[in-house]
């Protein structure tokens, strides 16, 4: 009778500092240029799941205008998108679809978990919940988490800027295996 439970990620007590592999040849300028270009051209996938999608639309609209940061080109095809913004609750039925969409996106790709639902289930989390995935990181690696229910548009912009910083520094996502 119990729904299939996903194994929760095991978190070590002491934070492990990842060993950064030093590339043999470092194309410093070229890499930096490419990273800067990537950071400034984050095309999100047109993909809304629930409430947060409306705020995502609001961010794309006149008052907040995500296009200022070069991130306003919402691409409906996963093949042409760079960043997946999880905007809303991820239901059990939706999980496989999201996995497939993520696999369809070309590398390098990033993801933003927008809102409480995609962080840990948010307001829909309760013991024995059967309908949702408690967090987007059960499915795909997440680069930036934005709290809120739904996060305000300013918060999403801050999240995008945080992702830009990360890309410019050449950091890989924390949750990236």
């Amino acid at each position: 009778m119990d729904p299939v439970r996903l194994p929760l990620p095991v978190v070590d007590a002491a934070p492990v500092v990842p060993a950064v592999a030093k590339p043999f040849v470092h194309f410093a300028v070229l890499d930096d240029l490419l990273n800067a270009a990537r950071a400034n051209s984050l095309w999100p996938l047109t993909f809304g799941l629930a409430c947060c999608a409306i705020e995502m639309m609001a961010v794309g609209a006149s008052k907040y205008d995500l296009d200022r940061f070069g991130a306003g080109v919402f691409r409906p095809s996963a093949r042409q998108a760079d960043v997946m913004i999880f905007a809303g609750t991820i239901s059990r039925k939706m999980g496989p679809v999201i996995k497939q969409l993520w696999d369809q996106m070309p590398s390098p790709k990033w993801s933003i978990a927008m809102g409480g639902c995609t962080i840990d289930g948010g307001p829909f989390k309760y013991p024995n919940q059967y309908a949702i995935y408690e967090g987007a990181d059960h499915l795909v690696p997440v680069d930036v988490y934005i709290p809120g229910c739904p996060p305000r548009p300013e918060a999403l912009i801050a999240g995008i800027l945080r992702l830009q910083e990360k890309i410019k520094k050449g950091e890989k996502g924390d949750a990236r295996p």
Partner: protein
Amino acid sequence: MSPASATPVSLDGLLLESADADFAVTGFHRVHSASVERIGDVARAYDEGAYLLEMITCEDRREDLKAMRLVYTFNRFAGDLDRHVVTVDLSGEIPGAEAPSINGVYPAANWFEREIYDMYGVTFSGHPNLKRILLPDDADFHALLRDFGRMEDAES
């Protein structure tokens, strides 16, 4: 269907019980109960009276002596508001009780019945497309049954 053609429903002989209800308190004008065999006829009578099917739902009343109960509410656009509720008690295993589908009378019942099948495991005979609607196709549980997924169970 025009307002003038709205006729009162004749439900003579189709119901087990019938009573007036206080609309101001319960939100229903009349409360009926019917046997599971006659629900198709009841629906047909309402359809002839140009009523609409507002919703169908199901209750798992295991802690309340009776087992499963289907709840149909009918209303009308024309004339004054007249909301009727028809309850149908089901016998049989849980999950796995059976009831006839009224999809042939009200196409609206299609999705409601699928939802009840999905959530309570009630099978509707004569339904053209009885499969899960909200939960994934491969789910092996009926989510709104009383003994499934209770918060207390997880805490203890």
